[in-house]
């Protein structure tokens, strides 16, 4: 594992789920036989999860403006289709300020892997309400409880046209690793949502003080996709539906772009 990392101390709070996501990702990379990360380029925006690759991965990483990691990844991938381009980001970065880019990348079937660490909160800035915060949850900007319905980013990317989409939690470490592995092997747009614990900025305000409390909550509240499909909407309120939502194969963005380029060069 150390061979993938720079010799730096990780910045995450005690109990943070980012280390689990990092570990799951690197296990998947290891299983795929990559001895190092030379074939990868990482793009990340702003937020705690954006720090998973930058600067800790011994690799090329571009740590960009808030929400814009997917556009930057688009430029990298189109000019270097041979590289594995992986985006790390939080729910605020990718499903808040950057949601439009997420949708359009899925629509284009942009051949990158997007790993969204969903801790249901803006953690780095101190625990403000996020587009993913559960209805009623107390945050620093919803002191009376959140009055907004949360977004389901995984279902959105499925609808938008992703080739691969899965959601697991940091409780489901092996499933998460397996989802990352399949995402990396996916030809087109691959999205993995990792529901993750933030004891510091989320858990302690909603009565789940420790990482263990949050992981237990994930365990008890998770519903496998095949079971969820048989449940009514009322019973699914507040549940985390986990599983592989889609896995399909159709032409990727860089394939279609370069088919166009080749045609244009011929016609000249």
């Amino acid at each position, binding site marked *: 594992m150390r061979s993938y990392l720079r010799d730096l101390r990780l910045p995450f709070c005690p109990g943070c789920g980012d280390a689990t996501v990092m570990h799951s990702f690197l296990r998947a990379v290891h299983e795929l036989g990559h001895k190092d990360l030379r*074939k990868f380029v990482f793009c990340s925006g702003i937020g705690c999860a954006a720090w998973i690759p930058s600067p800790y991965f*011994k690799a090329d990483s*571009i740590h960009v403006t808030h929400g814009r990691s*997917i556009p930057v990844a688009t430029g990298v991938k189109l000019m270097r289709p041979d*590289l594995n381009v992986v985006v790390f980001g939080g729910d605020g970065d990718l499903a808040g300020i950057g949601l439009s880019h997420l949708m359009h990348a899925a629509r284009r079937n942009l051949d990158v892997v997007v790993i969204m660490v969903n801790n249901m909160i803006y953690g780095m800035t101190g625990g403000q309400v996020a587009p993913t915060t559960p209805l009623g949850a107390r945050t620093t900007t919803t002191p009376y409880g959140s009055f907004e319905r949360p977004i389901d980013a995984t279902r959105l990317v499925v609808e938008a046209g992703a080739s691969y989409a899965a959601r697991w939690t940091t409780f489901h470490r092996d499933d998460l690793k397996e989802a990352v592995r399949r995402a990396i092997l996916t030809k087109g747009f691959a999205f993995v949502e990792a529901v993750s614990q933030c004891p510091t900025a989320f858990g302690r305000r909603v009565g789940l003080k420790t990482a263990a409390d949050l992981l237990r909550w994930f365990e008890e509240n998770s519903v496998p996709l095949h079971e969820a499909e048989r449940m009514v909407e009322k019973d699914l309120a507040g549940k985390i539906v986990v599983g592989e939502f889609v896995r399909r194969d159709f032409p990727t963005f860089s394939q279609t772009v370069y088919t166009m380029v080749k045609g*244009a*060069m011929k016609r000249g």
Partner: protein
Amino acid sequence: MTKAMPPGTYFWQGNEACAEGAIAAGCRFFAGYPITPASEIAEHLTKRLPQTGGVAIQMEDEMASLGAVIGASWTGVKAMTATSGPGFSLMQENIGYAFMTETPCVVVDAQRAGPSTGQATKCGQGDVMQARWGTHGDYASIVLSPNSVQEMFDLTIEAFNLAERYRTPVVLLADEIVAHMRERMEVPPLKQIALVNRRKPKPGNDAFFGSQEVPPMPEVGAGYNVLVTGSTHDAYGIRQTADPLVHQRLVGRLVGKIATNADKIVQFEGSNVEACTIGIVSYGCTSRAVYEAVELAKKKGLNIGYIRLKTVWPFPSTIVQTMAHTADMIFVPEMNLRQIFYETERAVHGEVPVFSVNKIGGGEMITPEELLAAILKEVKSLD
């Protein structure tokens, strides 16, 4: 495979000339979002770049457009976007990012009448200060101002050259008139076009963000393990979000590499600058009226001279100061409510009175007659 257009005489629109200039400069990637009066650049490049083996795409907005350009630039290719005022506003975050991360790229802003949606199809020159100060924090800008279709071609190439030489975003500050008009222009033989390419690292280099005024720039996927971040970082790209010295060193160098090379960067056109009693400082479309106003003024017996800024930022203070030594008054005509006027005043430091001649709205240019009338009014009041 079609490459750059063969040398010869062409009758092009300014935006076409800009797009062809980009191809001649070696641009391989374009990403943009539709906006009047810059859309023809996207339309032309989406047709022409693929013919040269490059990629041109339309993104979902302007933040994404410049983001994709930045990503492409880090793969080692020359990349560009084009927009107008409203989109230029949206690009400011990534202009700051490109400056902070020393990412060469070209941003074309074909100005229209603002603020906000303003008059989308009408010319304005109101983005001059935004091009200098639009993003937050301390920074320095390189901004070029073409005044002809020929310069839409030439200065686009120059913008790429400066971006590559100084590892910084460069703005081509065009305007609706220069962008949309058609006139005759010459494409020189490719061999005569001087091109600059970013300096690449040598084996063993790892300080990609310091230790030299303009450090060498690696590309991703080449084994350098390059760390790019818009946070304050040390010479190796490692975030240092609290150390005052690292911030001072980084931002000081980034501003300094442009400020200390201002004399090398700055380009202008001048006539009778050092001996005139009446001086004019102008740029962009407005400067086209200046040529004729100068001829009209000469016929009236006035000793008139002008400076036409090709580089708006860094501001060519030295030549403006030279003009101020002999001139009794300096006029600054511009299609905004005073922007370069203030910079001119600042440069001459009270040595000579500076008068502004302004016109906004409807895309109506300042005419030579209007400029002459403004000059004669002040000359008479001096008598």
